[in-house]
Every structure is written in C-alpha cells, then in structure tokens.
C-alpha cells in the first residue's frame, strides 16, 4: 500500500490558512474573539500590537497542544490548555512591558484577557486537540490572520473617522479637511460605535457570502 506523504503546502493545508480569512472568519462568522475586537480598536497601533500578540500565542499554543494531544488526560484538558495559554500570555505581557510600554498601558487589561480570548480556546478545543502539529500551526496562523484583518480594518476606520489620523499621523489636518468645515466623528472613538461598525462588516460580508445568511 502506498503511503504518500502530503507536501507541506498542499492544497488542503493552504485551505486551512485561507479559510479563516473569509468564510470561516473567527470574528464575523464564528463569533469568537469579540472582546478585544471592541476594546483595542480605538487606534491603529494597539490593534496591530494585539494582532501580532494573538498570532504568537495562538500559533505556539496550537503547536504545543497538538504535540501533547495524545498525553493530556481528558478530565483536566481545560486546565492544561489554560496553563499553556496563560504562560504564553505572561511572556507576551512582559515583552510588551519591556519594549512597548506606552502601547502596553493602552492595552491594559486586554493583554491579560488574551487568555480568555475565545478564538484561542476555541481553536485548541476544535482543532489542535485532534490534529497533527503542522496543520495546527497553519490553523493558528490562519485564524490569527482572520482576526487581525478584522481588528486592523476596524481600528483604521475608527481612528481615521474618529480622530482624523492614521497611526498617530494627523492625516485629515495635513490635507486641509478641517479648513473646509469637516468635523471628526466623535462617536467613532466611543465603544458602541465599534459594535455598530462590526455589524456593518457582517452585513457586507454576508452580502457577498450568501451561504452564511441565517434562516428565518
């Protein structure tokens, strides 16, 4: 019997990487990772840092749990998963405090809350516990990319329309929009607007992906 080894970047594996960016998007489809999406998207810089942190934690946690999947007793698997995630987040938190202190202060409790980010627990339970290491790594990168894409676009919209700047650079001021009477949309900086903008993202997303529309 022929035992064909699947190439590292076969079509099936690439699907793992690209799936979560569109039809399997963790935020707009699976309803995971909503808390940081709403909490850290006031400005673009904290959102980018959060996206990279989640990428790091999700990929490595997926890898570790996948490597350990045959040795974890089922009764304590939640505790093992939480321990792995918590240790990785402590690492991220210390690195952020050391090298990016101002962003760390802006993110405040949301760095710790990466531990309870449902995407990480969700993917560990749904995927890493039952799959090999390489697909788990790809799944981690894919989901983190899907999540990162949503929060970066949301943060860009909120910062641009809420304070007229991009990554701190006062764009609208420089191109002279204020002199023609344009005013910043103060509501964009406030948390409720994030929810409404994500609702609009979902509207747009599902208009293009008809199969995601819910039944009456």
């Amino acid at each position, binding site marked *: 019997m022929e035992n064909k080894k699947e190439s590292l970047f076969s079509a099936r594996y690439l699907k793992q990487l690209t799936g979560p960016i569109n039809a399997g998007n963790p935020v707009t489809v699976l309803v995971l990772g909503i808390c940081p999406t709403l909490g850290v998207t006031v400005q673009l810089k904290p959102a980018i840092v959060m996206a990279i942190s989640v990428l790091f934690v999700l990929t490595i946690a997926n890898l570790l749990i996948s490597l350990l999947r045959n040795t974890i007793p089922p009764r304590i698997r939640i505790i093992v998963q939480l321990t792995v995630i918590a240790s990785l987040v*402590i690492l991220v938190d210390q690195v952020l405090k050391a090298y990016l202190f101002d962003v760390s202060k802006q993110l405040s409790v949301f760095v710790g809350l990466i531990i*309870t*980010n*449902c995407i990480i627990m969700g993917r560990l339970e749904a995927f890493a516990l039952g799959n090999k290491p390489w697909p788990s790594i790809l799944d981690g990168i894919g989901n983190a990319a899907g999540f990162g894409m949503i929060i970066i676009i949301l943060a860009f919209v909120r910062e641009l329309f809420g304070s007229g700047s991009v990554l701190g650079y006062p764009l609208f001021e420089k191109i002279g929009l204020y002199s023609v009477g344009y005013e910043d949309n103060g509501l964009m900086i406030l948390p*409720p607007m994030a929810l409404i903008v994500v609702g609009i993202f979902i509207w747009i997303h599902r208009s293009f992906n008809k199969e995601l529309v*819910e039944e009456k």
Partner: protein
Amino acid sequence: MEDLVNIFVKAIFVDNMVFAFFLGMCSYLAVSKTVQTATGLGIAVIFVLGITVPVDYLMQNYLLKEGALVWLDPSLADVDLGFLSFIMFIAVIASMVQLVEMIVEKFAPALYTSLGIFLPLIAVNCAILGGSLFMQQREYNNIAEATVFGLGSGVGWFLAIIGIAAMREKIRYSNIPAPLRGLGITFILTGLMGIAFMSFMGIKL
C-alpha cells in the same frame, strides 16, 4: 457604607461589563437567543463573579503584590509575585466554575442541559477574568469593596444579557435584511444599547 453602595451602582450602570468594556461578549451573543437560558447564565455569572473577585482580592493582597508576603517573613518585603497573577486568577476561576457546574447539575438539571457547553465556558468568559483584573488595577481598600464590585459587575452583565435576549425574542418577527439577520442586527442593537448606557456616565451618588 455610602462608598459600598456607590461602587455597587457604579459597577452595574456606569462601568457595565458589557456596554462599557465589552467583556463577556462571546457568551453574551451566543446564549441570548431566549430569555430563559440568558437568565440561567446570568445568575451563574453573578455567583462566580461574587466569589472569585473577593478570593482574588485576598490573593492579590496577601500573596501577589509587592511586599505582600510580609506577614510570612519580614525579609520577604521586596518580593513581587505580580507576574503570577494571570495563572493564579485563572486557577481560582476554573475551580469556581467547576463547583458551579456541579451545583447546577445537581439542583437544576434542566438548566444544565439547556446551557450545555456554555456553563464550563464561563471559565474563559472575559468578564470574570476582567472583573479580577479591574479589581487588581483599582486597588480597593478592603474586601467588602471588592465583593460589592464583583457582585455589581455580575448584576450589570445579567441585566445586559436579559435585555438583549428579550429584544432578540421580539425582533424574530421583524423584517430585517437577510444578511443582517441574527448576528448582524444583534451587534447593532448592542451598540445602540451601549450608547443608551452612556447616559449613566458621570453619575455620582
């Protein structure tokens, strides 16, 4: 006493876990399809928050923060175990949730089956960990303040999920554009409720 009432009311309305900080959104969105399941989950959250925040307060002040270990041995005055907070808090929360799960299974089996996976998922509900982290950040003066904050946060979350569940039950009969049905309109509704709750900002008792 005034302080305690102030903290309690502030935690329910002004610093509402859902509308001011967006914590606990995943269970909030997933369990709010009917008012019955929402009530069950809300009460479980009040219970868990009301116990984990004071317990974590004790841990924070007698074990974790800088100089906390002085009661054990004066020479340990400059030991700062703050970096262990995440793991310690999560351990307390996970054990509490396991306890709540056992109690609910024994005394309310119907609720247990209707909540399904979301009862153990309270352990990763960001509102619970967030409650403890806020308590750590705000440095309350005594355990009474911490308990009242925990209970208030729980009641705030409970109010939020009951509200959205009631609304979702009603709009099932409305004409919503197809792509917005279900999840999309819930997000927009929650955003509008958030704007409404902003009217409580700046209230001082």
